[in-house]
């Protein structure tokens, strides 16, 4: 350990050094310790893995108007607009899956204008600032909009993810679903909270 000893001896703590140490201590001491609620334990599920599975499940519980598919073999497209938070989870979930005769296809878009034939669109948190413009750009299209930003469904999105006591919750805006001509199965709606646009909670 001669190196370590020599190094420590050589370590000159001058005025600035003390300042740094003091401020390090200050940050450590002064900042409030959070409640222990955030500690994680094994056995929990990765948030976006779960959300990816939900996006896949929506394909089973939503009915699109006939015109939104070219034919009965046209795949169901799940899109991600903006920064993709799923990693590879979404691709992994839909790989090899079919709903009826339809395969599932994942696409990623940077801009709402790029969203072509798309059936389920996850609007990433990165787009939160321009959500009204995004939703306006999808107006009249048969797209199930899904998001997890605050008040997504009450701001005009169709399905919003929320986290309540560490469980995932769904908020569904039925009026928005109607105007997109989508029918959401009652089986899904039973598990969801139905909200209206502009509603304050």
């Amino acid at each position, binding site marked *: 350990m001669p190196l370590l000893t020599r*190094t420590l001896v*050589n370590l000159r703590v001058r005025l*600035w050094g003390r300042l740094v140490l003091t401020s390090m201590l200050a940050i*450590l001491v002064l900042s409030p310790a959070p409640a222990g609620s955030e*500690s994680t334990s094994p056995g929990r599920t*990765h948030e976006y*893995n779960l959300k990816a*599975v939900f996006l896949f499940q929506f394909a089973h519980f939503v009915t699109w108007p006939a015109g939104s598919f070219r034919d009965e073999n046209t795949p169901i497209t799940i899109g991600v607009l903006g920064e993709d938070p799923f990693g590879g989870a979404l691709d992994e979930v839909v790989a090899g899956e079919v709903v009826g005769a339809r395969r599932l296809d994942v696409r990623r878009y940077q801009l709402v204008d790029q969203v072509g034939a798309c059936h389920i669109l996850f609007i990433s948190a990165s787009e939160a600032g321009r959500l009204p413009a995004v939703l306006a750009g999808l107006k009249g299209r048969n797209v199930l909009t899904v998001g997890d930003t605050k008040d997504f469904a009450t701001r005009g999105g169709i399905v919003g993810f929320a986290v309540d006591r560490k469980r995932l919750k769904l908020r569904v805006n039925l009026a928005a679903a109607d105007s997109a001509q989508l029918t959401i199965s009652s089986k899904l709606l039973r598990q969801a909270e139905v909200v209206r646009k502009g509603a304050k909670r």
Partner: protein
Amino acid sequence: MIHPKDSVPLHAAVRRVSGRRRLVSSLIAALFVTTGLGTVADADPSGDTPSALKKLSLEELFTLEITSVAKKSESVSETAVAIRVVTQDDLRRMGTLSIPEALRFIPGVEVARVDSRQYAITARGFNGTIANKLLVLIDGRSVYTPLFSGVFWDAQDTFLEDVEQIEVIRGPGGTVWGTNAVNGVINVISKPAASTQGLLLTGGGGNVERGFGGIRYGGKLGPRAHFRVYGKYFNRGPSLRPNGDDAGDDFQMPQGGFRADWEPSAANAITIQGDLYAGTVEQPTSDDTEFAGGNVLARWTRKLSAASDIQVSAYYDRTKRTIPSTFEERLDTYDIGLRHRVALGSRHDVVWGLGYRQFFDDIRNSPMLAFLPEELQRREYSGFVQDEVALVPERLRWTLGAKFEHNDYTGMEYQPSTRLAWTPTTRHTVWAAASRAVRTPSRIDRDLYSPASGPPYLLAGGPNFESEVLHAIELGIKARPSDRLTASISTFYNKYDELRSLEIGTFPLLLANGLEGDAYGAEVNVNYQARSWWRLDSGYTIQNLELEVEPGSSDTSQVKQEGDSPRHQWYLRSSMSLPHALAFDIGVRSVGELPNQDVPAYVAWDGSLGWQPSGTVELAVVGRDLFDRQHPEFGTPASRREIGRSFYGKVTCRF
């Protein structure tokens, strides 16, 4: 460039960054050497895989308890390393046009523009145009030159709109990255092709950046295969002489490239990418300096299980440089690497790898200065292993690793490190590290002769030059006192031995390892989200380097390089997202004097205003050094160039 995306409070950006930081933490960033991509799934041993979740009923899905990525990522970075990430949003907001300019607002990093094409860039001291203690990788491809162990910054460009992020790690990274990652590592990471679909056009111009433009098109090759191609060009005006005259070093460079990503199955990902470039720099009194090159890289990642993945990558890089009547070089580099990561039990995360690199260097010398032999072939092979142990799950992590690398000059070199990260609460991480890193000899250390016509020589290389050695101790704290405030302090003590010296007590002169020194410093970074639309970022760096001539050495010049770096640097950046899709950024940075070069301290103001009138168009006006007609950043008064105030406008369209 400006984007309304920026109006999203940092959480989004922070989340991405920190998500990646967690990945880094689990592997001490080993992955990024070769992946450059998030293709390795976020293997979360504590959570269910997507495939398993899929089998659950709807009711069951609602009962699952989740770990929120958002929460995790909003908590402070737990990495036991001083890391800072420049995101695509940062690049847009700053209106950045080059990789060096993207590194300006990072604590601990020195960026000094030398003239129209050259930069002196380093971390934690030893700056110079041939600075040799910083390793730079672009998508896993090392761009350091074995000529002087540094980077020709003029030849390193990329399509910045397609960059995902630039990671800057201060401190030794030799254990994973290998020799030359002595004082830091920079990783430029581009987006996967799937994230850059469609047509993007960008262009603009101004007084110094006279004209620049780029086009990128991304498309699909199949259901799981995407590609993009790009081309770009810039024409940059000259730097200035101290009296304000044009220095005649106008610089222009076209560049093009491609990337294709294919995921034949969920477990396999293949990437192939490449670039071509050709730069020309005018010189006032001779023919143009020219450089050109290209590279192609292939990478295959295979996920063996949730706890294990393997990656093989290979690249070829050719670069040529002609400085008329001075120097001409052609360098070919072949590199192949293997990396395997495996989680052993619930506590150990092991990553190990093997690498082989070979280069052929061919130089045409000038009468005054010569690299001898002119043609040289060199081989390096290496292996590394690193284990991250969760001593106390979620609380205390210990990382231990070493790299062994063999080079043709000095034989086997070893670079061990150990790191400890303690996360007492989700808002605090305290970390410490001890490392050994080496800079192996490069051609400039061993093969530099003058004059070329010798013997007799005035300077006869460094026949006995050995590796420079660093022993470093680092200590840092990262904290998130509130949801709006993050702060980090990184401190270091570096002990250098065997540093390069110029021995003038002999004839001919020789390069040797006659210097030693120590450096210490601290870097502070505070990031404050004042409002949902307003973010402040600040940094302060203090460092001190003291070099000494070892007994027996007759060096009098190299020892002065302790004055090549500023003692103090600070910056403050404000980023505002304003109504009407406007974004306004302003940054001020202060750089202390460089005593060895009589470069005075300076304060520079940069600003940019962006507007996105529609989803397809972005406009920006950018000003650099707003309140200063011109100033020097590097070089001695007799020969240096200065940097003038610049403005440019930029338009970006996405279709």
